[in-house]
């Protein structure tokens, strides 16, 4: 049984796909999610092997969800869409397979075989993900999408990951690693990422580490380990 998660914002579409997927007898449906944020949480807790992922979703679409998932957790992905205006063929390498709505059971069986074959070979899914232009954050009980360019720096503490912008601090579900890989933010210390466009000055300290003063006058630590990388990235 392949552990699968279904993600679609439309209730009827979700239920229909759940039914069809269960009818194949090949999947254990872990559940279904209505949006990308929800899905990210479920992926972390349930660690599914396969996603049936709708592309057109409100706020964050299917591609953006993929960009938010850590590499270690990345499941295999089957895109599901009503109409391939995205020229699905062009990103076949970004996905294992794709299904068109309404989904026919026969077509779904082909997908089952393809998925089984891939899992049997034991290849970990490696999809080309796009850079994240927006970082989803929890804000009251809404999801706020903060443009990556607006972020001043990011830090982690026991409570989680926090984005700092000129408008304040926001909590995000994404990990520092994902943010480092998929946004222009640079690591400057184990617990800090800095937006290079927001650096006002870098002050070198005696012990080989450094401090960054941001344009909003925040001071961030730079560890020796990351200072070297930072210098290379900033061409210093």
């Amino acid at each position, binding site marked *: 049984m392949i552990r699968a998660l279904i993600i679609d914002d*439309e209730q009827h579409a979700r239920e*229909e796909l759940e039914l069809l997927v269960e009818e194949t007898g090949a999947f254990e449906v872990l559940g279904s999610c*209505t949006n990308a944020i929800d899905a990210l949480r479920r992926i972390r807790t349930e660690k599914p092997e396969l996603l049936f992922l709708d592309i057109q979703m*409100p*706020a964050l679409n299917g591609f953006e969800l993929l960009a938010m998932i850590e590499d270690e957790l990345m499941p295999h992905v089957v895109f599901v869409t*009503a*109409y391939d*205006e995205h020229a699905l063929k062009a990103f076949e390498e970004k996905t294992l397979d794709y299904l068109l*709505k*309404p989904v026919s059971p026969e077509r779904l069986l082909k997908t089952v075989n393809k998925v089984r074959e891939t899992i049997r070979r034991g290849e970990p899914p490696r999809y080309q993900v796009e850079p994240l232009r927006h970082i989803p954050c929890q804000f009251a009980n809404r999801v706020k999408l903060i443009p990556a360019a607006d972020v001043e720096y990011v830090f982690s503490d026991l409570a989680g990951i926090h984005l700092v912008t000129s408008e304040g601090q926001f909590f995000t579900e994404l990990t520092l690693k994902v943010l480092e890989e998929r946004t222009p933010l640079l690591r400057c210390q184990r617990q800090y990422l800095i937006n290079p466009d927001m650096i006002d000055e870098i002050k070198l300290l005696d012990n080989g580490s450094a401090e960054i003063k941001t344009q909003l006058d925040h001071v961030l630590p730079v560890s020796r380990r990351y200072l070297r990388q930072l210098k290379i990235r900033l061409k210093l």
Partner: protein
Amino acid sequence: MPLVFQLLQQTAVIIVIAYLFSKSPAMDYLTGAKLQRRQLLVLYVVFSLFSILGTYAGLPVQGAIANTRAIGAVLAGLIGGPVLGLSVGLTAGLHRFSLGGFTAFSCSVSTTVEGLIGGLVYLYLVRRKKPEQLFHPFVAFSATLIAEVLQMSIILALARPFGDAVALVKVIAVPMICANSVGAALFISMIRDQKRVRDKVGARFSSKAFTVADRTLGILSQGFSPETAREMVEVIRQETGVGAVAMTDRKEILAFSGIGADHHHAGNPVVTKWSKQALRENKVVFANGYDDHFQCPLAEHCPIGSVLVVPLQVDQEVVGTISLYEPKTKLFLNINRSFGEGLATLYSHQLLRSRYEEQKTLLVQSELKLLQAQVNPHFLFNALNTIMAIVRKDADQARELLMQLSNFFRTNLKRKKDIVTLEEELVHISSYLEIEKARFGERLTVNQEIDPTLLTLQIPVFTLQPLIENAIKHGVADLLDHGQVWIRAYRKQGLVLIEVEDNAGNYCKPMDTQGLGMRLVDQRIKNIYGDEFGLTVDCEPQRKTLVQLKLPASEELKNDSCINH
């Protein structure tokens, strides 16, 4: 003082010659505009002759000549500037020198100086930006007065023996100063009058041209057809007073008015060689009536004697002609000739514009039709997917939805009318909305606030659908929950406003960067009702997008030609 009167008599002769001159084509050079080198040369010859004539017409007085030579020199400077004045003065001076006498040298110098004085006045007035003053008689009078006083001084200074010079000046000073100044003033006032008459004729001609253009361009904008041609030829004939006017297309006479109308009929094929030539060679053809006689191929007794045929063209291509005719008993006026040619150019431009407008409208129409007939695949497949899911749970609802879907596509396919009522349009989009409501479930609420008196309002077909589609696709479909759409129609300040609002606030772009559907709706409304109507988009990011359609409040939509082409 008989000398004054004798001199004035001489002046009168010169003035008569000047009058004849002012009637000649050389007058064209005295329009006050900047003179060309060739014109300056002509003026040099003319004024030198005047000046020399002044010498010959002079009266011998005490071994010298009391004369009116100064008029030519001063006026040459005044009209043509210092160079012309100097040249004429020098020429007349040299001529005077050749005649001899004890003042020969002093007179030749003084005449040159007099020309220069005219030129200096010219420079002064042109620099002060008052060139129109050059033709003021008082200016000519004063300039000549000063020039003559100077001449007397020069004679006293240069002519020897000095005693003779003093005696001479005593006799001739007053008569010459008077006669020359008055003569110059009269000359200039004559030229000025002549100019005024010409300006008046020109003004009358241009006002006539404007009247004709004004009265006919409006007619022409309704199209180039026998009906509009008939009205136009009437106007042109009334305003120009020519014998007859005709308009043709490439093959036949569209309209004919005036003499010879008994055998020149609308609907006849184009037969005269002049019209055929104009059509064939795309050029103006003129039979002036004396070298080239118009000969009517239809009737012996045809009174027409001369003709001007001007081709009408659109994009280098001849679409027809305008012909002006005069009877055998009348000369074809030059003025009417240039008028006819100008008119044809004007009409050609208007025809080009109409054609452009027409094509623009047609383009919008056909693009809209295409868009309308196009099945939106997203909508279709999502609808089918939704219905497939619902079939399992609620067959009745599924049947209902399939009905709505088929209604929606049927109306989209069969709508042949260009104008529908608001009610028909609302029924059409309600099918669409029912399906979208089933698809999005609780995430979509639609609110309608329609003024019931507006249900019969006539609007262009397919006006609402793109607006609603936008509100769903970029609005509600992008919200996690509680998507709302408002559809309103109401009257306000003599306008009808139709609004579609959503609470997503996602398409905050100006109108010209909106999707094709929205732009076409806007374009079509503007084409039909004018630029003050159409679509506006008002957006508060994350809060709302309001698309407002502004229409005139008149109940009946005119069966507009834009639509039914």
